[in-house]
C-alpha cells in the first residue's frame, strides 16, 4: 500500500479510536432526538372548555359564533399549508369550488373566505374534496385539534342566581373535566352575564382557571362590546339597516399566495442545508484539526518522528495526515447526513417537515457539486493551518499561542457571514468574503441556497484551489525544516529562514 495511505489509515484509526470523536459523531443524532423530544414537550396544551351563563340570552350566540370562526380560520390555515406542501391540484375538468378558498395555499383568510368555506360545508366538504384530488403518497389531511370549545353548563352549576353563587358552584367544577365533542376538557374560563347586563355599573364576570389566556378573554370581550356598541348606536337614533350595511363594508383586497420559491421562508428553507453544512464544516474542522494537531505534537514529544521520517518522506507524512483527517471528516459528515436523511423520512413531526424540503437543495447538480467541493476544499485549506501550528509547536501549551488567534480568526468572520446571510444573502460581507480563500467555503456554502452566479462560483473556487496549492508548498517546506527542530524557537519564521534543511 502507498506510504501516504498507510499514514492516512493510521491517522484515521488513531482519531476514530478516541472518545471525543465518538461524542462528536453522536452530536447530530442527539440534536435530532432532542429536537423531536422538545417538539413534543413544547406542544401547546390542549384547548379548554368555556362555560358561558348568559342570563340576558343575547350574547351567548355571538360568543359561540366567534369560537366557530376562530376554529375555521385555524382549519383553513392548515388546509392551505397542506395544499401547498403536497401540491394539491384542482380537480379536472372541474375547477375549485367557491368554498375551496384554501386551495391556493396558506394566506390570510378574510371573514368572507371563512363564510364561503362554511357555506360550502366546511371541513367535511374539504376533506371529501381532498380525498379525491390529493396526489398519491400524500397522507390524509389531519385537522388541527379544536382549541376553545363552548360547553353547556355542567350539572350542579348555579345559573339562575347571582354571580357569587355562580362562582361558588364553578370553583369545584374547574377541578374536573367536562365532556366536549373533542373529548374531556378542563374548564378554562367561566363567564357570567347577569340579567341586567347593559345597565350602568353592571359587569360581566370572568372566572379564569389561573392560566392567563388574554386572547380568549379578548375574543369574548370583543363580542360583548360589539353588541353593546350596536345597542348604543341604536339608542342614538341611527338607522339600524344603514348601520348593518356600514358595519359590513370591507376594503376590497385580494391576498394572493406568494410565488413559488420567492418567499423569504422558502429561500431560508433552501439555504438550510448549505448553512447547516457550513456550520458542520466549522465544527468538524475545529474538532479534527485539534485531533490532528494533538497527534502531531504527540509524535514530536514522543520522539517518534525520526523513526517515521526514516521510512516516509515529510511530504508523504504531511499528505497522509491530511488524507486521514479528511477521511475522518467524510465519515463524520456522511454519518450526520445519513442520520438527517434517515430522520427526515422515518420520523414525523417538525424535524422531518423541516429536513425534507431542506434536502431539496441537493437536487440541483451545481449546488450539490459546489457543496461537496467547498466542503472538502475548506477542510483542506483550514486543516493545513492546524498542521502548521502542530509543526511549529513542541507542546499543546506552545500550540495554544497560535490556536487562539487561529480559531478566533475563523470563527468570528464565520458568525458574521452567517448573520449577514440570514439577513441578506447578497449582502456585501458574504460576497466579499467569498473571495477570501479561508472564508470562501463558509461564505459560498451559506450563500448557495439563495443562488450564486456561476462565474462567481468558478472564480472563487479556482482562487481557493490556488490558495490550497500555495499552502501545500509552504507547509511542505515548513514540515521539512522544523519537524526535527524540537526545543528551538522560531515558529513560523522557520518558513522563511530555512529553505532546505
Amino acid at each position, binding site marked *: *500500500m502507498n*506510504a501516504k495511505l*498507510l*499514514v492516512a489509515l*493510521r491517522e484515521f484509526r*488513531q482519531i476514530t*479510536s478516541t472518545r471525543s470523536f465518538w461524542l462528536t459523531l453522536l452530536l447530530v443524532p442527539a440534536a435530532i432526538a432532542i429536537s423531536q423530544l422538545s417538539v413534543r414537550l413544547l406542544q401547546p396544551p390542549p384547548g379548554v372548555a368555556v362555560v358561558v351563563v348568559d342570563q340576558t340570552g343575547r350574547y351567548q350566540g355571538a360568543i359561540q359564533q366567534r369560537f366557530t370562526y376562530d376554529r375555521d380560520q385555524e382549519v383553513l390555515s392548515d388546509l392551505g399549508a397542506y395544499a401547498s406542501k403536497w401540491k394539491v391540484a384542482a380537480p379536472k375538468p372541474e375547477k375549485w369550488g367557491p368554498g375551496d378558498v384554501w386551495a391556493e395555499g396558506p394566506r390570510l383568510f378574510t371573514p368572507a373566505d371563512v363564510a364561503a368555506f362554511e357555506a360550502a360545508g366546511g371541513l367535511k366538504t374539504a376533506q371529501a374534496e381532498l380525498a379525491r384530488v390529493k396526489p398519491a403518497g400524500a397522507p390524509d389531511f389531519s385537522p388541527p385539534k379544536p382549541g376553545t370549545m363552548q360547553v353547556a353548563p355542567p350539572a350542579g352549576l348555579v345559573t339562575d342566581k347571582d354571580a357569587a353563587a355562580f362562582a361558588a358552584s364553578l370553583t369545584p367544577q374547574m377541578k374536573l373535566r367536562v365532556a366536549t365533542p373533542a373529548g374531556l376538557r378542563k374548564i378554562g374560563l367561566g363567564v357570567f352575564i347577569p340579567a341586567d347586563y347593559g345597565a350602568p355599573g353592571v359587569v360581566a364576570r370572568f372566572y379564569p382557571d389561573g392560566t392567563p389566556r388574554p386572547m380568549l378573554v379578548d375574543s369574548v370581550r370583543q363580542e360583548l362590546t360589539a353588541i353593546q356598541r350596536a345597542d348604543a348606536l341604536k339608542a342614538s337614533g341611527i338607522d339600524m339597516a344603514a348601520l348593518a350595511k356600514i358595519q359590513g363594508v370591507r376594503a376590497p383586497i385580494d391576498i394572493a399566495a406568494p410565488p413559488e420559491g420567492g418567499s423569504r421562508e422558502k429561500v431560508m428553507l433552501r439555504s438550510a442545508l448549505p448553512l447547516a453544512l457550513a456550520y458542520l464544516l466549522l465544527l468538524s474542522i475545529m474538532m479534527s484539526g485539534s485531533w490532528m494537531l494533538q497527534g502531531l505534537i*504527540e*509524535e514530536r514529544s*514522543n*520522539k*517518534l*518522528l*525520526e*523513526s*517515521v*521520517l*526514516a*521510512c*516516509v*518522506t515529510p511530504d508523504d507524512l504531511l499528505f497522509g495526515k491530511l488524507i486521514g483527517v479528511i477521511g475522518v471528516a467524510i465519515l463524520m459528515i456522511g454519518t450526520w447526513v445519513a442520520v438527517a436523511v434517515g430522520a427526515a423520512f422515518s420520523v414525523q413531526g417538525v424535524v422531518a417537515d423541516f429536513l425534507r424540503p431542506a434536502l431539496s437543495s441537493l437536487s440541483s447538480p451545481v449546488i450539490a457539486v459546489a457543496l461537496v467541493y467547498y466542503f472538502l476544499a475548506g477542510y483542506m485549506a483550514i486543516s493545513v493551518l492546524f498542521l502548521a501550528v502542530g509543526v511549529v509547536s513542541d507542546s499543546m501549551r506552545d500550540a495554544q499561542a497560535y490556536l487562539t488567534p487561529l480559531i478566533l480568526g475563523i470563527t468570528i468572520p464565520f458568525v458574521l457571514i452567517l448573520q449577514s446571510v440570514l439577513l441578506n444573502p447578497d449582502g456585501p460581507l458574504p460576497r466579499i468574503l467569498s473571495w477570501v480563500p479561508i472564508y470562501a467555503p463558509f461564505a459560498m456554502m451559506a450563500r448557495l441556497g439563495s443562488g450564486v452566479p456561476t462565474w462567481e462560483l468558478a472564480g472563487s473556487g479556482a482562487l481557493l484551489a490556488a490558495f490550497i496549492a500555495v499552502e501545500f508548498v509552504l507547509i511542505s517546506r515548513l514540515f521539512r525544516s522544523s519537524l*526535527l*527542530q524540537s526545543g*528551538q524557537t522560531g515558529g513560523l519564521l522557520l518558513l522563511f*529562514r530555512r529553505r*532546505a*534543511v
Partner: protein
Amino acid sequence: MSVLRLDGVTKRFENFTAVDNLSFEVPEGGIFGFLGANGAGKTTTLRMALDILRPTSGTLEVLGAAPGRRGDGEVGFLPEERGLYRQMTALETVIYFGRLKGMSRGDAESAARGLLDRFSLAAFTDRKVEQLSKGMAQKVQLAAALVTGPRLIILDEPFSGLDPVNQAVLEDVVLERAKAGATVVFSTHVMQHAERLCDRLLLLAKGRKVFQGDQEAARAQLPTRLTLTARADPRKLPGVQSAQAQGAARDGWTDWAITLAPGGDAGALLEACTGKGFALRRFDIHRASLHEVFLHLVGDAEATPTKSGQAGVAA
C-alpha cells in the same frame, strides 16, 4: 563495494557547523563503529545518510545510490531518540513500520512475530506500547528497524537506556545480523561496546574525522606500554622512551612502567633484553583500550578550537 560513502559532506545549522567536510566509506559486511563524544556530529551524519536531513555541501551514497526512502526495506534504522505510537500494540507497531518500508501485511506480520519472539516479547505482542516497560518498548523499536531484514542496519546509540541483560541481547542480535551478511553501522560514545563489536571504526570530533581504521590501527595511535620487573635500569634499552620505577626494589628486583617510543615494538625490546642478558622476571605488554585511544584522539581534537562555534543542534 561500499554501502555508505560520504564525500566532503558538510552540514551547517545557521551559524553552527555540525559536520565539517567529512569523507569516509563503509565497506559491505561487518560492523562499523561510529564513535564520538556528545555533539561530535554522529546523529547528524546518520540523519543525512537516511535523507532526514540534507547536507549543506558534499555528496552521500547509500547502497550505491543517493540517500532516499527506496521503499524496499534495504536500510533499517534505530534512532537515538526512541518513541512509538502509544496506542498501538507491539505487533501492530512492527507491522506498521514494515509496511511503510514496502512489505506486504502477511510478510510483515510473519517477520514481526519472529522478531518479537526473538526478543522474548511473544507474550506481549497484543499489549499496547504504553503498557510496556521502557526496555520492552526499545526492543519493539529495534524489531521495527529490523523487520525488513535490511542489508544496511543503522543504529544510533542503540545501547543507551538498556539494562545489561538487554544490552547483551542487542549485542547478540548485532553479531547475528553481521554474520548473516548485513552491514551494521552504529554510533556510540561507550567504547566497551565498540571494542566488543566493531571490525572498523571511525572517530569524529567536532564534526571532523579524527581516525578511521580497525581496532589494531586505533591502538597503534598510542605508544606501547609495558610493565617490566628487572634488576637493572631499563632506560638504556633500545626503543624505550621513558621508564618509571614503581616503588622500592625487593631482593634487588624493581617494577618498571615502560613507554616505548612511537613505532616501538615490544617484541624487538624483548629480543634486545635476551641478547644483552638483561635479567627479567616479568614482561607484560598493556594493550591500549579504545577508551584510551578515544581520550587520546578526541581529547586532543576537542581541545583544539575551531571556527565552527560551541553548541550542537542535532549531533
